[in-house]
């Protein structure tokens, strides 16, 4: 509470505000043009919306009129200057007006449809439903104006749109509830929206045509705002069209706040700050999506020096610090060397450093020892194992649909690719452009796994583009912009992939068929194969359609391809994707630090899709090397990377770590004795441990297939189950070895701490732990009994270590 007061007190004594008007330049074309202006006061660390408080005036009301709310409308040809004044501050904007008296008709595509969309008429629960509503069906959110036009004007015997008597059109009577309407009142008779529809009908209800201008981009003011809790901010959204013109569409945009705990937004675009943090406000208009970022700094006091002195190792740190500064969050301290080495080994290669490696690293004096460690890790065989496992999760390598030899050839191709650090675009191209024997080219097993065209198309979008298309298979995607038409255009890229039996069981031949289409289920004909938002390939071309796809997929301009990979890699190290969840990078899922995401993607593409370069960049940042320990300002931060996010070890990594520390490898039926869990090419290998610790089935491409939540079943398994207990009691493990070596309890504990926790025990720990072991010993009895008691004590101690949070979590 005190901190809140300090914060507001500080805000109150800031120097006078600097006032600006947005948009900075206004052209009003045509009699119906309008522009909502914003008067924004810059108060230094935060801003305020003075639009409703300022006094507005026009230098020439005969050219441009402005009302008390800052709305400018055209009156005559020419130029005028609009001024906003408050508290001795003022700002101006030049407004140019032309065509103020020119003839004008509302456009079906650019006005009527947006009005219907804003009123909710064509949403999924109303007439936009697959089957429409009460016999009247519109396309979902107006994605197909031509169809909607026919539905409105041609069907229902012209009652929906009555040219003879516009005001008796059902299209006006129903939504105003002049006659009963199941959907309730959607329009007020005196509104602009009513007038748009009425005047459009009166003008003869002109139909949409291919020459209509289309929305090319959206623009929002303010795109970013730092605001105080309780304050409000009007958003202004403009549509930029294909012909270069601009409209204020603020009234017709659909607004949603991604985090209502930070800010809410009403349907007029008015934001109200409700808490602390940052949220994206999503703006949807005419199938275009944009965000405004609303930041409400936490009520912390953080000195500027904290940000200035943060070691900026690369661009990642610049973006992170910029974000933290906006939010008033201080980053945690840097992690110490012991924490770093454990973290780096686990995140990069899925193994723990050995006790010797830890001691060596801690003793090393060179300033760049962390960078050197990273470089060494990236060359290890375990690095290849770890990432081959990860990409095998992604590509669903398993014996479920593949014979063992096929599974191995697919796995080895993936592992070799990791080993050579094959650029990610080449990795994808090898899959999508190859033909021939799957035994010779393991990548082609991808097509053996996904023999069905539709299944293939969906897996591609999930694995390589971080999007989900499934809904659009049967109807337009109810939540995204993808239509069923786009779905089948996309799927048709894969309709000529042939798979036939090869020379032996498990060998298949992938070839390009000369014919084969997938029909759109309603149109009952094939559509030209087209990547999402890409250029179509002619239906009659003989070339392998996949080549067209692969070129589009791996193009540097295909931002989803690189975002998908960057987000997955970032999430591996940082505990959370910049877009969350990690496999969802669609445009409508905003990132927690968009600038950083863009910069990482650009760097990745600029470096030729080099995955190791990306990993190196992330690991060398100070951000990655922060401690997991929270300070007073970042306790609740789990999104902005102000500290390292602790994460439970993946099941496979945890099992291998237990094997490593106990010196007792796991046994996997059918695999050589020393195989580690992370070296398995298959997730169907029997292992109760891996099962309860959330190993993915590799049935569907979905990051959520892997679970990292702790559960009671896991606790029961490590307490009572065979896996860990057998490792501890094994006669040939490290516990036995340490005892045979005749080491003191203190030495044994030190070694175990280095090997399990990658650090030395503290003095206090040593004392406490030695005392614990001492208590477990037998005072009397035979030497065998004494030896057995000591051994059991040690086993129990190692059990306690390996079930502790420090062991089970990467931190």
């Amino acid at each position: 509470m005190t901190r809140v007061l300090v914060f507001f007190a500080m805000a109150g004594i800031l120097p006078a505000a600097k006032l600006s008007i947005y948009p900075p330049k206004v052209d009003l074309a045509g009699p119906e043009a309008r522009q909502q202006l914003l008067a924004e006061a810059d108060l230094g660390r935060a801003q305020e919306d003075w639009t409703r408080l300022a006094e507005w005036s026009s230098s020439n009301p005969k050219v441009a009129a402005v009302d008390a709310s800052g709305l400018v409308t055209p009156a005559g040809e020419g130029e005028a200057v609009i001024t906003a004044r408050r508290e001795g501050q003022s700002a101006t904007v030049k407004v140019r007006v032309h065509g103020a008296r020119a003839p004008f008709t509302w456009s079906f595509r650019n006005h009527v449809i947006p009005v219907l969309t804003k009123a909710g008429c064509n949403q999924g629960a109303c007439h936009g439903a697959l089957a429409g509503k009460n016999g009247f069906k519109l396309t979902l959110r107006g994605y197909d104006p031509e169809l909607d036009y026919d539905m409105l004007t041609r069907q229902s015997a012209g009652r929906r749109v009555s040219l003879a008597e516009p005001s008796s059109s059902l299209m006006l009577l129903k939504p105003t509830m002049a006659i009963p309407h199941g959907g309730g009142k959607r329009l007020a008779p005196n509104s602009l929206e009513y007038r748009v529809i009425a005047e459009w009908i009166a003008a003869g209800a002109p139909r949409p045509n291919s020459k209509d201008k289309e929305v090319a981009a959206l623009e929002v003011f303010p795109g970013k705002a730092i605001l105080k809790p309780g304050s409000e901010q009007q958003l202004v959204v403009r549509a930029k069209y294909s012909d270069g013109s601009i409209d204020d569409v603020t009234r017709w945009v659909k607004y949603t706040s991604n985090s209502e705990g930070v800010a809410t937004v009403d349907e007029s675009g008015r934001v109200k700050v409700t808490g602390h943090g940052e949220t994206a406000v999503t703006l949807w208009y005419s199938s275009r999506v944009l965000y405004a970022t609303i930041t409400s700094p936490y009520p912390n006091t953080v000195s500027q020096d904290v940000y200035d002195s943060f070691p900026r190792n690369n661009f990642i740190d610049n973006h992170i610090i910029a974000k933290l500064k906006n939010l008033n969050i201080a980053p945690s301290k840097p992690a110490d060397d012991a924490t770093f080495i454990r973290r780096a080994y686990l995140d990069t290669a899925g193994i723990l450093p050995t006790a010797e490696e830890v001691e060596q690293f801690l003793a090393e004096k060179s300033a760049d020892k962390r960078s050197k460690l990273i470089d060494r890790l990236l060359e290890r065989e375990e690095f290849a194992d770890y990432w081959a496992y990860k990409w095998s999760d992604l590509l669903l390598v398993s014996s479920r649909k593949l014979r063992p030899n096929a599974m191995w050839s697919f796995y080895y191709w993936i592992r070799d690719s990791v080993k050579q650090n094959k650029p990610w675009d080449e990795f994808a191209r090898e899959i999508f452009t190859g033909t021939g024997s799957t035994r010779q080219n393991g990548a082609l097993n991808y097509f053996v796994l996904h023999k069905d065209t539709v299944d293939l198309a969906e897996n591609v979008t999930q694995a390589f583009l971080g999007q989900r298309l499934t809904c659009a298979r049967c109807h337009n995607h109810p939540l995204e912009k993808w239509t069923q038409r786009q779905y089948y255009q996309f799927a048709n890229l894969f309709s000529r992939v042939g798979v036939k039996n090869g020379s032996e069981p498990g060998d298949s031949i992938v070839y390009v068929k000369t014919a084969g289409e997938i029909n759109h289920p309603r149109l009952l004909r094939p559509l030209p194969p087209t990547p999402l938002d890409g250029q179509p390939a002619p239906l009659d071309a003989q070339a392998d359609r996949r080549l067209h796809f692969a070129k589009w997929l791996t193009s540097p301009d295909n931002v989803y391809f690189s975002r998908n990979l960057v987000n997955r890699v970032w999430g591996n190290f940082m505990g959370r994707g910049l877009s969350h969840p990690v496999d969802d990078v669609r445009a409508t899922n905003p990132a927690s630090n968009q600038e950083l995401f863009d910069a990482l993607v650009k760097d990745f593409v600029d470096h030729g899709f080099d995955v190791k370069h990306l990993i190196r960049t992330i690991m060398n940042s100070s951000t990655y090397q922060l401690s997991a320990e929270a300070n007073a300002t970042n306790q609740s931060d789990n999104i902005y990377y102000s500290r390292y996010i602790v994460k439970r070890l993946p099941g496979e990594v945890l099992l291998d770590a237990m094997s490593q520390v106990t010196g007792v490898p796991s046994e996997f039926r059918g695999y050589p004795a020393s195989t580690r869990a992370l070296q398995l090419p298959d997730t169907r290998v029997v292992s109760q441990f891996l099962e309860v610790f959330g190993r993915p089935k590799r049935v569907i491409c979905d990051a959520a297939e892997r679970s990292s939540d702790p559960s009671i079943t896991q606790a029961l398994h490590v307490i009572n189950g065979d896996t860990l207990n057998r490792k501890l009691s094994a006669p040939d493990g490290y516990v036995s070895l340490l005892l045979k070596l005749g080491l003191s309890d203190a030495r044994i504990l030190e070694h175990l701490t280095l090997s399990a926790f990658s650090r030395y025990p503290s003095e206090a720990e040593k004392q406490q732990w030695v005392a614990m072991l001492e208590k477990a010993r037998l005072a009397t009895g035979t030497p065998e009994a004494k030896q057995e008691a000591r051994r059991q004590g040690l086993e129990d101690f190692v059990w306690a270590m390996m079930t502790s949070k420090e062991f089970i979590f990467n931190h």
Partner: protein
Amino acid sequence: MFRLDADRPVEFCDGLRRRDFLHAGALSALGLTLPGLFRLKAFGATTDPQKDVNCIMLMLVGAPSQIDTWDMKPNAPAEIRGPFKPIKTNVPGIEISENFPRMAKHADKYSLVRSVYHTAAAVHDTGHQMMQTGRLFQGGIEHPHIGCVLGKLKGPKGDVPAHVLLPRPIGNTGGNMPHGQSAGYLGKAYDPFVLNADPSDPNFRVPDMLPPDYLSALRVERRREWRAAIDKTVSMFETSQDARLLDSTFQQAYTLMSSQKARAAFELHKEPEKVREKYGMNRFGQSCLLARRMIEAGVRFVTVNMFETVFDEITWDIHGSKPFSPISCYKDLVGPMFDNAFSSLVEELGERGLLANTMVVAMGEFGRTPKVNPAGGRDHWPQCWTIVMGGGPLKGGTIVGASDEIAAAPKDRPVNPAEVAATLYQGLGIDLRVELPGAQGRPIPIVDRGVEPIHELFA
């Protein structure tokens, strides 16, 4: 107003604290301390035992078609009424589909709400959210499952978890959205205990409930103590929800281990073969039987997911084309599976005197298109469907609401998912005005103000 705040100690009513203490003492067979048990049990005290109602929620994943199940339209045109015929039930005037002959004998024990609808996108995931939490997830807030709210407010009863989910969570149903099956903003500590096994598996058992022979109780206890001692030295995990959860899972595991009664609840093989067969020797049937055992052992809320996904599996999701299911499966497979499990459950709960304080609700996430599609199936239709509710304080043998002549929209008394949730909360004896601690401590009411339960279902 009752308000619970996770981070502050709650105001205890006096008598309660003592009772909890005794209770926890009785549990400490291994000298365990169970701070989790004290947690917020205060609130449960306001309900008298008579009102201590349980609930079994059968999630009919995939979404049954209203017309082919509990809201038949025999007089509609063929392309509407579909392939099945209605049969009479033991309650005059109530007819249901011929696919549920056993269920027809128990219509006095449950009621049908024939006018449920929702207005969100017609994808499975949104329906799962709304039916299990009462709300659509918006603005980044994940709402808690009703059973998790119950667990938060009343805590576990005895040694078993408050909320158990059988057999597995709902997986991929196409929308890539949360399904409303977790504790959401309440935190993972209130997530249900998930079985994650198939009770119809011949080797089914909850693994690792007891230490192996070679580990003495003394050593198990020493390990527990040492684990706590070692972990205490590390402070960096305090702000991690997952890390706190890890400790709570260990505590709960020890509780289960130390309770003969809790362990026995999972021993399905102790049921006579005849009883098991009555429920159906399949995943859903055996899960329903296990649900009964859970309630007997003291679990307050059991969620049973009839299916895990709608893809490549025969489910209620009868689009008529692959990878979904054909309409005929209602007769051949899914219908009988439900009929046997549901009927046996209701029968047995009745025979054992448990139906009086155990609600049983069976519901899908939406309805299906009135018109049969070209593939002979029916597609998604959230505008109108039927759910089954009974047991506890809920009346049986009645019909609430009605659909229009083709079951396309509620004609009478529309009921939305929030009202279904309110009905369950009311039935569970939870005051609808209770607020829960949301993100940054902001209170969130369990149902929005003004949402009323289905009063017709209460005597």
